[in-house]
Every structure is written in C-alpha cells, then in structure tokens.
C-alpha cells in the first residue's frame, strides 16, 4: 500500500513533505514507489539537462536521438555478457557495481560504433549527413528490436522498449540513474571550459588546443550513458523530450550558459515531480492509470509552450 494511494494533486505534495520529514526523523523508512519514480525521473532530468544543453547548442540533437535508439544493442550485449538485464520481465538482479560498469561500457561501445558507422558513410562513402545518420540508427535499432524479440521470446518487447515503464521502477534502478547523474555532473564541471569554447568558438578552441573531436566524443559518451540510465524508466523516445524540452524552454528565459543549464535542471526536475503527482491524481480521482512517463512529457511540452508564449509576448 503506497502512502500516496488515493491522494489528489495537492494532497500528494503535503504527503511528500510529511514523508520527507519521516525519512529524516525515523530509522525505519523505505521508499514508496511514487518516491522512487520521482527520484529516478529527477536523476534522469539532471543528466538530460546537462548533456541536452550541449546537444542543443551544438545542433547535435539528432545524434542524441540516434544514440537513444542504438543503445538498445548495447543493452542486449550486456545481457548476453552478464545474463542480467534491464529489459522487460527478465529477472533484474541487484545492480552490482560490475553490472553497472559493463552496462556503461557496452553503451559507450555502441555509441562509438554509431559514430564510427555514421562517419564512414558520410566521409568515406560520401553519403549525405542526414541520410547517413538516419540509416545507421534505424538499421541498428531494427537489429536491436529483432534480437530482443528473439532473445526474450516476447513479441511485445518492442512496445515496452519505446514506452518504458516508470511504474515498474525499483530501488535498484535508482543506483544506475544516480551514478550516471553524478558522473555527468563531474564530467561537465571538469570539462566545462572545453565544452564552452568548442561549442561557441571553434577557432578559439583550436588556438587554445581544445580538440573539437575529443569533446564531441566525450559528449556522445555522456549521452550514451544518460540514455542507458533513462531507458528503463521512459524508454527510447521519450528521453529525447527530457534532452530537448527543458533546455529549449530555458533558452527562452536566458542566454547565459550557466543559468541555462541550471534552469534546465530545475525545469526538468519540476516537470518530473509534477508529472508523478499528476499521475497519482488521475489514478485517485478518475481511476485512470496513465503512463507516468507520458504525463511528464506532456508537462514538459506545456512548460515549453508557456515559456515560448512568454518570450513571444514580450517581443
């Protein structure tokens, strides 16, 4: 029985604060499912805002889309290697450090593979850039779905992959999400100057010795990790809203990179919390069991529309 059962939207928040107090004061505390969802989505929102900001500014969002598709292969490879998986009904073991490591390594590998194949098609075979990336990720994704269907013997696995299942998240999933969020925070802080310069001034970057290629690949590695973390919660496609929505909304409100990232993090997290609260509200009041991930996306879209209107009205 979840402590949030039967709560309406505003009741949800009062319950949340009660629980917050409870978590600090009491020794016997375990996370309710709604709280796990909030923590997971917020963690994903933080990672997404960090990498998404640079993706948007460097006009590489399609690469983000591509990676979120091809990552499926990375997850399958991890499954084959460790016999543990974050896919569907296959038994999900505790996220041992080894497991997270192999998952991240595999995702990095697939990210590099995607980049390599795209570059080969574009540079060596002189194919158009848009067609190159489109061909690579749709093919790798189709391959992934086929393999996943064969391995899990579940013909509906494809659906689960694109829909995610926020409601099925466990405490173990939080570990993966927050390890990745921490990683992204550290890497972004560490390489901040480099990211900044290679994004805005290619010539200056070259003069100062910052390798544009290095930062591109670093960003792609971070994106790969981010989408792996988001995979189970929101699935392949909705993570793209996490990556672009809050950043685009924040962009209407500020042009300063620092503020943009922080604002994106705040907006993304807020949408996540509101989304979970709304999901609970719809269940309690209307008896509708809606996709929480979907609701968060709807909220993010709404926030985007509102900020766009505000900016447009100001002129």
């Amino acid at each position: 029985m979840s402590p949030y059962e039967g709560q309406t939207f505003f009741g949800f928040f009062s319950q949340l604060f009660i629980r917050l107090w409870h978590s600090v004061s009491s020794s016997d505390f375990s996370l309710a499912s709604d709280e796990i969802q909030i923590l997971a989505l917020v963690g994903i929102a933080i990672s997404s805002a960090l990498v998404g900001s640079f993706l948007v500014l460097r006009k590489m969002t399609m690469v983000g889309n591509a990676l979120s598709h091809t990552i499926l292969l990375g997850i399958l490879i991890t499954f084959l290697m460790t016999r543990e998986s974050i896919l569907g009904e296959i038994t999900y073991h505790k996220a041992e450090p080894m497991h997270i490591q192999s998952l991240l390594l595999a995702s990095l590998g697939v990210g590099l593979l995607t980049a390599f194949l795209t570059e080969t098609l574009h540079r060596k075979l002189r194919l158009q850039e848009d067609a190159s990336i489109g061909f690579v990720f749709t093919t790798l994704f189709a391959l992934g779905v086929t393999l996943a269907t064969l391995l899990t013997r579940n013909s509906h696995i494809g659906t689960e992959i694109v829909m995610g299942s926020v409601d099925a998240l466990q405490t173990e999933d939080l570990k993966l999400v927050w390890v990745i969020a921490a990683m992204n925070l550290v890497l972004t802080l560490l390489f901040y100057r480099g990211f900044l310069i290679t994004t805005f001034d290619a010539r200056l970057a070259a003069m100062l010795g910052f390798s544009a290629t290095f930062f591109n690949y670093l960003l792609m590695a971070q994106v790969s990790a981010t989408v792996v973390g988001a995979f189970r919660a929101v699935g392949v496609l909705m993570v793209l809203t996490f990556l672009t929505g809050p950043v685009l909304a924040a962009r209407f409100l500020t042009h300063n990179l620092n503020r943009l990232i922080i604002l994106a993090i705040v907006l993304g997290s807020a949408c996540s919390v509101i989304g979970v609260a709304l999901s609970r509200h719809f269940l309690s009041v209307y008896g509708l069991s809606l996709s929480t991930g979907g609701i968060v996306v709807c909220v993010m879209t709404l926030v985007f529309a509102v900020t766009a209107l505000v900016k447009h009205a100001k002129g």
Partner: protein
Amino acid sequence: MSILSYFTDALLRGPTVGSMLMCATASLIGAIVYVRKQSLVGEALSHATYPGLILGVLLYSWLANENDDLLLSILIMIGAFFTALLGLYCVNILQRKLRISGDAALCFVLSSFFGIGITLASHVQFTHSMLYRKAQAYLYGQAATMSDIHIILYGSLLSIVLVAILVLYKEILTITFNRDYAKSVGMPVRKIDTLLFLLTTLAIVVGIRSVGVVLVSSMLIAPPIAARQLTHRFSTFLILSLLIGLLSGFLGNYLSTELSQRFSAQELKTRFIFPTGPSIVLSAAFLCVFSLLYKVIRKRTHQS
C-alpha cells in the same frame, strides 16, 4: 511456403502485396526527400502520427458497432495524417517564429508528440483493450491482418503518388535541384513544396501499417541510398527506389512469416508473431549495404 504462394494464397497475399505497395510508396517519396536533404523529416512525421492513430482508434470505438477493419484502417489513417501535418506545422513554427534550429525542432516535436500519444494510449489500454492492441500493432507494423481490400486501398494511394510525380516530374526535379532557377522560370515553387509535404505525409501514413511508426522513416532513407549507388540519372533513381522498396516489402514479409512459423512451432504456446516492421527494415538495410559494397568494389576496379 513457395514464393508464389505469397501472392496467391488468400491469407498471405493481402499482407505481402499490401506491404510491397506501402513500402514502394514510402521509398518513392523517400527518393525525393533524399535529394531535398530532408531525410530526417520522416522521423518527425512518423512519430507525430502516433497520437492521431490513437485518436482514430477512439473515434472508431464511438462510431463503429461491429468489427469493421476497413473503417478502423481508414480512421487511423485520417487521425495519423492529421497529427502528422500538425507536427509538421509545429516544426515550422518552432523554426520560423521561435528561431529554434532545425534538428532541435524535429527532435522535440517528434518526442513530445509521441509522448502525448503514449499518454493517450495508456488511457485506451484499459478502456478499450482490444482496440489498444490493434493500435499498438502500428508501432512496429502488423501486415498480417491485411486483406484484398487493403491491396486496393494502398494500391490506389500508390497510384496517386505515382501520378503526382509523373505529372509534376519537371517541376519537382527543377525545384529540388535549383530552386532559384525554378522560380526564375515561373514554376509554382510554394505550391509544389506544399504538395510534396502532403505526399510525404501520405506516404508515411500509408507506410505505418506495414513497417510501424517507429521504423517507417527508414523506408524513406534506405531504398533511396541503395538506388543512389546504382545510378546517377534522376529518372532511374526514382524508379530504382520504388523497386527496392517493393523488394524490401516482399523480403520482410517473407522473413517474418517464415520466422514466426519457425518460432511458433518451437514454443508451442501462443502464436508467436514476429513483427513485420523490423524484418522489412533489415531487408532494406541489407539491400542498401549490398549496393554500397557494390559501388565501392566498382570504384576500386575502375581505378585499377
């Protein structure tokens, strides 16, 4: 299963010929989209169809009394068409009015529309579970339940696209290759642009039944890439794209049917349906890789 039976058998020919016609439509338009360097627009359009699909399903549940598969197909297509155009309109607004770069606009629209669709779908999941499953089949395509009526339906839609391209061949070629020149000669550039967008949306909406929402954009990308490696004449390029699409549609169906049978036999439990979409996409990808290799080898032998 002999290959001929795929065209004659009452159960098989609907899916097979239907898929072939759909993929041919997508690939033909894909060729034009390819030369306009808008290959990724298909991604946005296809994902934007998803909420419309669900709306079509809802509409069907209100209108239809008995099991009318054709009505369902048509309503789904209308809904999909509507939201796809809406998505395209949003991408335009994002780019023109809000000064958002093209790639971010596409990605945001495609994912948010899809998310809205998922929210709607989750609602339908419990209220109309039978219909929900039918709608979800459009995610990766399920040609299996198509009948002869669909062959006529999709054949007509392919014909519309073919006629449009044949009649406006000169305009499409000139506007795509050299827009300013086309304007200087007095061609109706804006009107043709609009027509092409409508045709692209139509092709996508037609394609999602066989390949599914998630993967249909690859039918606009892979066959044209393959065709491009085999010819440098524009007219031939269009024809080859269509043919390769046709072939992919067949191969994909053949593979998924054979694999489904193989697996159903093994599992013995519920009938295992291998989704059509990925098989068609992989077939197209295979043909594409084959063409790329062919071109590379030909280049090497030419040089030596």
